């Protein structure tokens, strides 16, 4: 059984089928890419998985649990973390605090613990800070720790979002165009980072616009177009699929 299984997943917005009948397996330990042109429905798939929208039909099963309609905070607690296509950091909190917030799902301190600064709360906070600093280290963000998130260079903000997501120790990480808006060198560096995240034991589902970028690192690629899955399989096969070429280059090309 796969770590994540999407079965006949559908999402309609009024008359628009943003995701139509999508079936997809994410095996534990893999990097799976979701590609497709603008408006294909890629982000909507993520929004369905993390509970921003409830599916119109089909099912989302993660580690034997059905996630359909589950609230985002529960989904995170269940072991899925994500980044956003348009960066959504906590702009006016420090870089360190952003990552510490990311750990929230794994924390236990009650409000009373926090208010009274009980031993349990201070110990937990120290641990969380320690882990957050480790993550900052891993992502080369150490020197920015006390800066506000909004003051980071754009590429660093993208990294910080990934660090924040990893703070919850997810089994599955959803990355929505982590390289968007960065230059080719930064994109390459990000892809290496994605691989090292997988080496840490985190399974990755990756949305990317640029097909060529993900070919080298993906175990499987799924191609969406107008909400439909038009191809899936190992990168080399997908790359040469005539329907994929058509979707990317446009009809008549």
């Amino acid at each position, binding site marked *: 059984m796969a770590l994540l299984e999407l079965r006949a997943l559908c999402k309609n917005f009024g008359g628009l089928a943003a995701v139509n009948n999508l079936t997809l397996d994410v095996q534990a330990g893999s990097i799976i890419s979701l590609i497709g042109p603008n408006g294909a429905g890629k982000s909507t798939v993520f929004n369905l998985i993390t509970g921003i929208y409830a599916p119109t039909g089909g099912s989302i099963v993660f580690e034997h649990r059905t996630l359909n309609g589950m*609230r985002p*905070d529960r989904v995170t607690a269940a072991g899925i973390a994500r980044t956003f296509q348009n960066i959504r950091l906590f702009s006016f909190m420090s870089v360190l605090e952003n990552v510490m917030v990311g750990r*929230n799902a*794994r924390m236990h*301190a009650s409000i009373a613990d926090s208010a009274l600064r009980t031993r349990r709360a201070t110990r937990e906070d120290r641990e969380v800070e320690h882990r957050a600093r480790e993550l900052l280290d891993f992502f080369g963000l150490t020197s920015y720790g006390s800066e506000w998130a909004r003051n980071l260079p754009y590429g660093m903000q993208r990294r910080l979002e990934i660090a924040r997501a990893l703070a919850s120790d997810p089994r599955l990480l959803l990355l929505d165009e982590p390289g968007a808006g960065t230059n080719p060198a930064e994109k390459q560096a990000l892809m290496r980072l994605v691989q090292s995240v997988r080496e840490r034991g985190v399974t990755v589902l990756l949305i990317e616009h640029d097909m060529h970028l993900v070919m080298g690192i993906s175990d499987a690629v799924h191609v969406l177009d107008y909400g439909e899955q038009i191809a899936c399989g190992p990168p080399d096969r997908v790359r040469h699929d005539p329907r994929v070429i058509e979707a990317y280059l446009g009809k008549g090309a």
Partner: protein
Amino acid sequence: MKRVLPLVIIVALAFVPLLDRNASHISAYADTGGLVLLAFGLNIIVGYTGLLALGFAAFFAIGAYTYAFLASPQFGIHLNFWPMIGVSAAVAGLFGLVLGAPTLRLRGDYLAIVTLGFGEIVPQVLQNLDKWTGGPDGIAGIDQPRLFGFGFGFNPVPYYYLYLAIILVSLWLLNNLRHSRIGRSWMAIREDELAAAHMGINTTTAKLAAFSLGAAFAGVAGVLFAAKLSTVSPSGFDFNTSVMILAALVLGGMGNLPGVITGAVIIGLLNFLILPQATNWVQTLGQQMHIAVLASVDLNQYRFLVYGIILVTVMLFRPEGLIPSATRRAELHAEASSGAPAQADG
């Protein structure tokens, strides 16, 4: 320096009643302490969590009347003052929960309207349930605190120290909260609620906690208010009071405790000391010079004009408040230059 300054201020504040022997001054300082507590409460809701709550004085009223019901001849119940601080905080906090549970799901502007309505309803109810509340006259003869056999009575000095002590304890609690799991959750919600939910924060619970805890602070302020005055009436908790609390936050700088205190102290002194004093002076002057207009002037009536002028001035020259959190300062100066924040895409 950063650690010494607060200590110096605390010690200085402890000496105030020894240096200033005027009872009406001390009374005004104590009332200002009440405004500081109210501003602390509203700051959790508005400053930390970013929820716009109006009509906050309703919780102040609930705290005051809870004590008035349970420690006065009204029902012949005379519970001890000290545990009643906690009880009234809990009752006000519970009302916060009950009001917040259905409304915190609403978007910001609706929350403002619902809380505004609540702020109007509570004094109305207190006015009209006259069988229990004494109607517009309120409840008199409320018990005053005793400590080790010493009765506080109407002497403002012990109340002054009581406010000072409670403010110090509150500061410790609030500072702990601010730098903890829940404090970070509140701020994350303020910054981006959807992203906060994706951190595993149950945003509804966290917002409810902020709302309820803020209300509890108002409840504590209510008990102290009722005990010091020994009487309560609905008119003390109207919209004007809510505006005064919000004005203190805006003036001092939301989200930052030194700013909140500064704002509350300025508005409090203006309201409880400076305007009444100035009224006296002007009236005396008017009587001596036989100018009827001056002799009968009441500057207290113009206090909203004065708040208005102060707030407009602050908004024009220092929109982040006098002592803002670094955050708000940057926020207000950044958005003008870099345009709207990233748009939601889910």
